[in-house]
């Protein structure tokens, strides 16, 4: 009698079997996407992965990738032996400080401090910017070797790579708002004295921070997905001093009006108005109100078809 494999044995072997089955068994075409690995206790909606998704490393890698791809503005800083109470106090001060700017918005809750595992985050950064910038290549069998080969150069050339040699944490913002950035910088990285009224624990905690670098995601500054612009400390401070987008738009409009650009504004507006008139005339022609020369059927003088 043939041995029946025990159920738990089959479960543990499913995973490695799936990764290599595409090349061995002729029944499955190689270019078809394989079903996600179904490990016990794992949701079938989890993305396909070659490494075991149950390990801490894989989960961290995924978390960091999603952080990199979804965060428009990140501030990296070094943290040196903070106590737990100091972290708590600093996070609370940050949350309260941001809430004060705009009590209605959820930006304060979305702004988070994440302590990173620096080597793993550097690897995720290389995947996000060097290997899979368009978020299209899923992890392939043997992917980690592919990634290592393709992104070897980034270890030397990427401007953020020297940052990840220390204990690093990241402050991530859900959107680029200079006012929020300025408040966060004032609380966490004051230029001279810490902000007045801070918790003494928070004060002793922020002495152990060193602001290192920032990263603005590509889709914010140039509509380019999968790359980020790295800022050094001075540039971050400059960014924090900028007014917000609506103020800048208003200023541009006022400047155009003031500097004799009123014609320009009018001309820009005219394009839309002209197009509307042309289309409207065409509609009238079709519905029989005007004849083919754009003259009213009744014979009234009206130049409807001039524009365009």
């Amino acid at each position, binding site marked *: 009698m043939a041995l029946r494999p025990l159920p738990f044995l089959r479960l543990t072997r499913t995973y490695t079997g799936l990764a290599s089955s595409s090349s061995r068994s002729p029944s499955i075409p190689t270019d078809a996407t394989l079903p996600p690995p179904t490990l016990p206790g794992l949701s079938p909606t989890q993305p396909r992965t070659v490494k075991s998704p149950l390990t801490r490393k894989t989960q961290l890698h995924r978390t960091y990738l999603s952080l990199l791809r979804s965060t428009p503005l990140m501030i990296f800083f070094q943290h*040196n*032996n*903070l106590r737990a109470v100091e972290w708590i106090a600093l996070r609370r001060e940050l949350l309260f400080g941001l809430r004060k700017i705009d009590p209605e918005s959820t930006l304060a809750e979305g702004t988070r401090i994440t302590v990173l595992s620096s080597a793993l985050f550097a690897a995720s950064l290389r995947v996000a910017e060097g290997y899979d910038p368009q978020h299209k290549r899923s992890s392939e069998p043997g992917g980690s070797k592919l990634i290592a080969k393709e992104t070897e150069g980034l270890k030397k050339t990427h401007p953020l790579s020297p940052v990840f040699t*220390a204990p690093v944490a990241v402050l991530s913002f859900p959107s680029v708002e200079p006012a929020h950035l300025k408040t966060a910088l004032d609380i966490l990285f004051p230029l001279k004295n810490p902000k007045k009224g801070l918790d003494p624990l928070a004060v*002793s905690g922020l*002495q152990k921070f*060193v*602001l*290192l670098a920032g990263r603005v995601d590509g889709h914010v500054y140039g509509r380019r997905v999968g790359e980020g612009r790295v800022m050094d*400390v001075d540039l971050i401070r400059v960014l924090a001093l900028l007014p917000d987008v609506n103020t800048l738009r208003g200023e541009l409009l006022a400047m155009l009006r003031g500097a004799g650009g009123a014609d320009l504004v009018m001309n820009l507006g005219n394009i839309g108005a002209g197009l509307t008139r042309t289309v409207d005339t065409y509609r009238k022609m079709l519905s029989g109100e005007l004849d083919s020369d754009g003259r009213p059927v009744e014979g009234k003088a009206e130049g409807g078809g001039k524009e365009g």
Partner: protein
Amino acid sequence: MALLGPDARNTMKIKTAVLSRDSEVGGRVEVGFKDGKEIQMDTSKMTIADIVEEVDRHSRGLKRVDDLAG
């Protein structure tokens, strides 16, 4: 920096400055001991172990003096 304990800032004065990306000078560490001796190190070609060794060399002597006196 990460080698300093969580209470290090209560007992000594620590000042850090981050150099900008295109800065010409390399890193530098200056240590002032409590007996007034000062050490300056150019860290552009040193590892962290070298720095610790340099600093420890003098502080070991200080510690011995303290132990003998106390």
